[in-house]
């Protein structure tokens, strides 16, 4: 920290303006508008510039938060951007979707007595500022011997690709879908993460010389062994956890039942909200029940409302306190009129004579003793069944890794949840020179954790390739 650091100013957190709920439920535009320069500076002035740097410890990629904030406070936004970029290659995305309240901000010293510094909002501001000014361009690296194949273009793959390209390696990213970005493209909706931001980040990688091969399903189009044979010295698997879960209750193949993956992919990747200009349709329904209460469930129900549903209902078997979604997203959903039916679990989906969903039969639950996850276990209350009239049901129950990769790569081990076995610090799998990270290893987690894994693997791959 510089000696002459200005004294922090005591004042409440600077709020971030956002679209009015009544208006935003009719569009897919981003909900929060972001800080202006002035707001960013005012918020930055609250930071104590602590020596202990607890906030940094809370960030999985250790962004130099106090330094970033100090530069913002002094109006040096582009310099602040460069500081962030040193450790975080996707700041415009993290500033928006990181669960800051559990990571950097929860550790903030100011949070002990009042509100923590709005680190995520400042980071978002800095990244948007740099991108808008076209200052995000990075120097083209000095080429170095070595070719690396990255499988999957989610945050894990993009980060590994960026870091290796920065070191000068020849990097090719193979993506199964027709668009790069992973969950950032197909899962998280436009109103939470505008797709232009994902495009911009991907274009930065392209500008650094990263080669992007879309429509390549590794395991089908090409195998990991073939990649190695084709001259890639190392492979990084960032294939995510894309497999949906259903409840295995009666009625799940009725018309009008979706996995959250399908519902969100149609809406976000395929832009069904612009149907028929975009060709992919969706049946959002009039009354939509979304089963689950994580970020995926909140995104699904908020999409349903924007697609014209009269009622969006979250059905969750535990109570509000256990909901895994970010608090901010739950608030947004509440503001948008989403109804929460907690301590409620579906037992059966009922169809009409034409095979369309007409109701969801549920049972009420109560909370018993804490289970292995430390959360109180929901127990059905006998005889409390009731039906809820709905015409669409979206299952948002979590996802697991797609088995295509491990089924087609001899020697690649998975654990009993189907997650790839990989070393925690290097990401090395049970196959030499094959690394993995992100949701494919941890199961569904967060953007920043996936990025952290991509980063560590890039370091490990670099170390190996240097010694070749």
């Amino acid at each position: 920290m510089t000696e002459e650091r200005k004294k922090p100013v005591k004042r409440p957190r600077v709020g971030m303006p956002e679209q009015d709920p009544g208006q935003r439920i009719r569009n897919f535009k981003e909900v929060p508008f972001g800080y202006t320069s002035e707001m960013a500076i005012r918020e930055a002035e609250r930071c104590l510039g602590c020596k202990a740097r607890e906030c940094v410890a809370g960030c999985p990629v250790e962004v130099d938060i106090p330094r970033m904030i100090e530069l913002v406070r002094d109006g040096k936004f582009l310099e602040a951007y460069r500081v962030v970029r040193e450790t975080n290659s996707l700041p415009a995305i993290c500033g928006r979707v990181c669960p800051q309240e559990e990571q950097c901000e929860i550790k903030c010293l100011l949070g002990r007595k009042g509100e923590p510094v709005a680190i995520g909002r400042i980071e978002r501001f800095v990244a948007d500022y740099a991108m808008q000014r076209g200052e995000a361009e990075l120097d083209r690296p000095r080429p170095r011997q070595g070719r690396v194949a990255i499988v999957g273009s989610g945050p894990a793959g993009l980060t590994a690709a960026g870091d290796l390209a920065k070191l000068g390696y020849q990097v090719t990213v193979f993506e199964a879908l027709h668009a790069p970005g992973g969950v950032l493209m197909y899962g998280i909706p436009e109103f939470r993460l505008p797709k232009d931001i994902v495009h911009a980040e991907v274009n930065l990688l392209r500008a650094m010389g990263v080669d992007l091969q879309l429509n390549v399903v590794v395991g089908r189009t090409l195998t990991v062994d073939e990649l190695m044979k084709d001259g890639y010295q190392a492979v990084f698997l960032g294939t995510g956890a894309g497999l949906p879960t259903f409840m295995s209750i009666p009625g799940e193949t009725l018309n009008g039942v979706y996995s959250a993956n399908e519902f969100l992919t149609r809406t976000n990747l395929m832009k069904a909200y612009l149907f028929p200009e975009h060709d992919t349709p969706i049946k959002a329904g009039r009354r939509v029940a979304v089963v689950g209460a994580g970020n995926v469930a909140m995104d699904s129900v908020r999409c349903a409302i924007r697609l014209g549903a009269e009622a969006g209902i979250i059905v969750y078997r535990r109570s509000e306190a256990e909901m895994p979604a970010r608090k901010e997203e739950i608030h947004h959903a509440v503001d948008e009129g989403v109804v929460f039916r907690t301590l409620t679990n579906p037992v059966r989906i009922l169809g009409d004579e034409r095979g369309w969903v007409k109701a969801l039969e549920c049972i009420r639950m109560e909370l018993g003793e804490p289970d292995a996850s430390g959360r109180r276990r929901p127990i059905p209350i006998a005889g409390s069944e009731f039906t809820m009239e709905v015409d669409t049901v979206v299952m948002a129950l979590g996802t697991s890794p797609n088995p295509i990769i491990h089924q087609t790569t001899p020697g690649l081990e998975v654990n009993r949840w189907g997650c790839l076995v990989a070393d925690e610090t290097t990401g090395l799998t049970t196959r030499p020179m094959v690394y993995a990270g992100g949701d494919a290893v941890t199961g569904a987690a967060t953007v920043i954790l996936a990025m952290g894994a991509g980063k560590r693997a890039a370091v490990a791959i670099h170390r190996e390739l240097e010694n070749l």
Partner: protein
Amino acid sequence: MFKIAERRDLTPVTKLFRVQAPLVARKAQPGQFVIVRVREQGERIPLTIAGYDREKGTITVVVQEVGKTSGLACRLEEGQGFPDLAGPLGRPAEPLLIKTGRAITVGGGFGVAPILPIAGLLRQWGVKVTSIIGARTADLLILEDELAAVSDEVLVATDDGSRGTHGFVTQVLQDLIDKGQRIDQVIAIGPMAMMRAVAGVTQAPGLATLVSVDPVMVDGTGMCGACRLTVAGEVKFACVDGPLFDAHQVDFDEQVRRGKMYAVEEKRALEACRCGGGHQ
């Protein structure tokens, strides 16, 4: 861009495309499919691989115009191409085929195209192949010569009697069964109604029968569950567990119902663009 190296008009509503897709051609096996998009705002639709040339790096697909996307696809010319094409997807037919004796293949509509590589494979193993093809009328029959080249015999049925047996392919199949000839396996690909009828015919004599189900798909890699169907009481994903399944175990009612899920939107899309054929 996946360039179209050759286009052939098989019927007014059915086009054959040989597409430059070297990686897919290198791996393709009979029974598998690709997912394509025909334009930037396009949806992802599955098309079966009807042939491949590993050396030239091309695959063949046959598209029948039924709605907006297939209609737009049928308007693509040589030199143009599919902006996106991913595959090969789905399980190869090979492990599901009986490698001895005699097989009957039944193809309806575009279904004759995916039959071609399967019949070819059977013949390689020395299986005797009888192929039955059908259409509404003689002009709509496709790929007869190509099929003849990989079959021991080709039997034709038309709804209006303009060629071969007057009636449905199932009648021809029933006749073969009634004659008491040895049949080890039946493979039927075509419209759902046809596949279902074939399943009905082969049920009583207990003939092993495969059909290629065609539910609505999105990703084609197991990620969305749009393609789910019930087989032997269990929910399967057609794109990774299929598309070929035991015909006697498939819940056809459910498939027919799920196939209509977007009927209203499909009509809207077609009307909005006035591009597809809508010849169901």
